[in-house]
């Protein structure tokens, strides 16, 4: 039987008053969509480790791909806070569903929009926005995760084309993607971005199996074996690591908002459960130790909501720095993971079953705290910002 989604939003500090009509309409629309399309099916897909591919189109129909990009390039023409609340509602459903949208919007559409030629923008962006094309983003390599600058993927000049060799790892969407925005070094060791199409000879994207996290999201590799890439597929607008890092800033921004959704879902589940579950002749919500957990959770969620609202305001003014985005990702993902663990305990044995979403969120968040810059790396980014000393190496 399809699950009934009893989620109720929590807004302890009346944050809604800080949001515009557009933000509230966007948030409520995505919340309705998640209740209708995601909640009824997600546990089943998660258990079978299958990606609900039909949702790629649905995400496009509601406008979840690149909502803050201009309409003429396949986006929604909205602001950064709208993008944030959309990610929050998607991740309230599942981090894997949010990842589908984050990758398509922030890591595929954004670099083509920011660094692509007009021809590239016209060719790819409308189709990516409508979900006709699915994209993925190739930066991380088997031996270069936290240190992407060391990447070995490289290309050599060959007339109108370049010849690309190398491999990428942990690539969301890659096995089902029609195109990949991949980053590789030229003969001088300078990083460039390029658009690969799935039928290019020598290009393959095998799936990675055995994940115990983000099981409803498909992940794979990208393998480049003498792939001939036309030079017109290279993004002309950027050289060096600034290109991929600016994309990561966009995606990390979305994650900082998204994980609040996962935390809210865990908190809401624990709150509802603890008011109904009776032990020693009273609801467990009436016991001090449980109230301490609930009070801590809603306090941390409220702090994260304020954090992201301010970050969103800065982003709208084009003033959000990478270190500020790192701080929000660092704090909020950790907050969500702690709330998932704490709320799971409040459900006792039921907390480990898929009758409730908490364990799934908890397992997902282990990926979210790792990808797009690990928790430790974000710590060092903040550390470097405040001390001026690079502790990476």
């Amino acid at each position: 039987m399809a699950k009934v989604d009893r989620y109720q939003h929590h807004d302890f500090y009346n944050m809604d008053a800080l949001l515009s009509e557009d933000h509230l309409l966007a948030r409520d629309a995505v919340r309705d969509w998640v209740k209708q399309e995601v909640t009824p099916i997600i546990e089943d897909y998660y258990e079978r480790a299958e990606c609900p591919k039909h949702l790629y189109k649905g995400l496009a129909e509601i406008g979840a791909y690149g909502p803050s990009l201009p309409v003429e390039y396949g986006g929604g023409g909205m602001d950064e806070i709208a993008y944030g609340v959309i990610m929050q509602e998607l991740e309230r459903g599942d981090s894997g569903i949010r990842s589908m949208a984050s990758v398509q919007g922030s890591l595929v559409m954004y670099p083509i929009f920011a660094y692509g030629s007009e021809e590239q923008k016209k060719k790819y962006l409308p189709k990516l926005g409508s979900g006709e094309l699915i994209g993925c983003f190739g930066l991380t390599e088997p031996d270069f995760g936290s240190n992407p600058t060391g990447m070995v993927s490289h290309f050599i000049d060959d007339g109108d084309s370049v010849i690309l060799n190398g491999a990428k790892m942990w690539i969301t969407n890659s096995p089902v993607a029609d195109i990949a925005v991949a980053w590789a070094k030229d003969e001088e060791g300078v990083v460039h971005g390029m658009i690969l199409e799935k039928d290019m000879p020598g290009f393959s994207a095998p799936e990675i199996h055995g994940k115990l996290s983000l099981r409803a999201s498909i992940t794979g590799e990208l393998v480049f074996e003498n792939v001939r890439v036309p030079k017109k597929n290279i993004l002309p607008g950027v050289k060096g690591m600034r290109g991929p890092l600016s994309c990561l800033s966009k995606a990390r921004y979305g994650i900082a908002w998204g994980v609040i959704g996962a935390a809210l879902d865990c908190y809401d589940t624990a709150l509802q459960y603890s008011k109904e579950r009776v032990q020693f002749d009273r609801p467990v919500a009436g016991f001090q130790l449980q109230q301490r957990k609930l009070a801590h959770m809603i306090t941390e969620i409220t702090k994260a909501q304020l954090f992201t609202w301010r970050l969103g305001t800065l982003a709208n003014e084009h003033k959000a720095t990478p270190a500020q985005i790192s701080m929000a990702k660092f704090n909020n993902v950790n907050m969500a993971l702690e709330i998932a663990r704490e709320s799971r305990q409040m459900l006792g044995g039921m907390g480990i079953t898929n009758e409730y979403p908490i364990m799934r969120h908890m397992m997902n968040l282990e990926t979210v705290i790792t990808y797009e810059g690990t928790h430790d790396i974000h710590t060092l980014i903040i550390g470097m910002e405040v001390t001026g000393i690079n502790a990476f190496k």
Partner: protein
Amino acid sequence: MNILVCISKTPETTAPIDFTPDGKELKTEGMNYILNPYDEWYALVRALELKEQNGGAVHVIHVGPAANDIIIRKALAIGADEAYRVDCDPKDAWMVASEVGAFAKEHAYDIIFTGKETLDYAGALVPGMIAELLGVPFISFANHLEYENGKIICQREIEGGYEEVEAPMPLVVSAAKGLAEQRIPNMRGIMMAKRKPLNVIEPQCVSPKQTLTGYEKPPQRTGVKLIDPENMDELVRLLHEEAKVI
């Protein structure tokens, strides 16, 4: 085909309902409101489908203060072409119906849709009053509607089955579950809604015909008593002495 859809607001279905200590007013602090689901999911969407099939325009009208503009924007985001808000705070169904009736008299709408009721007060009075004010037919609780040869044919759910009724246009139809399927607004629709006209019109200022004298909550349900399956005598005693059903 020109269609007017009447839209109303209602508290979010999960909102806790409480009243002031004197029982005269609903406590509205911190309460979130939504577009009434019967208006949104069924009336508005069926109106949009008819427009898509037959051409014309879909207008929405709301009788309420500016604070309710967000529900009007939502209707525009879903696809309505133009909106009208009568700027007053209605106290009963008569005030709403009078405002909509006066507005509709000045415009040539083929169909006026409402939801079958608003979820909060569930009065279901407004559409019948509008029809009477305009002197046009009224079909209530329609869960299926077709347009054929200039007539509207509706199916209504009745006790134990369905009935089919038809009426010429113009008419008023109140929409029940099943008339259409919910459409979730997309981001583009939300952005386009900002550019669609939301016209504010002055009210007729009719007096309400009803005065609210107070609210009262139903008695709280008492707890469940568990009885040992071996102790049938106790079950019979409780049913007889406490529940008084045997």
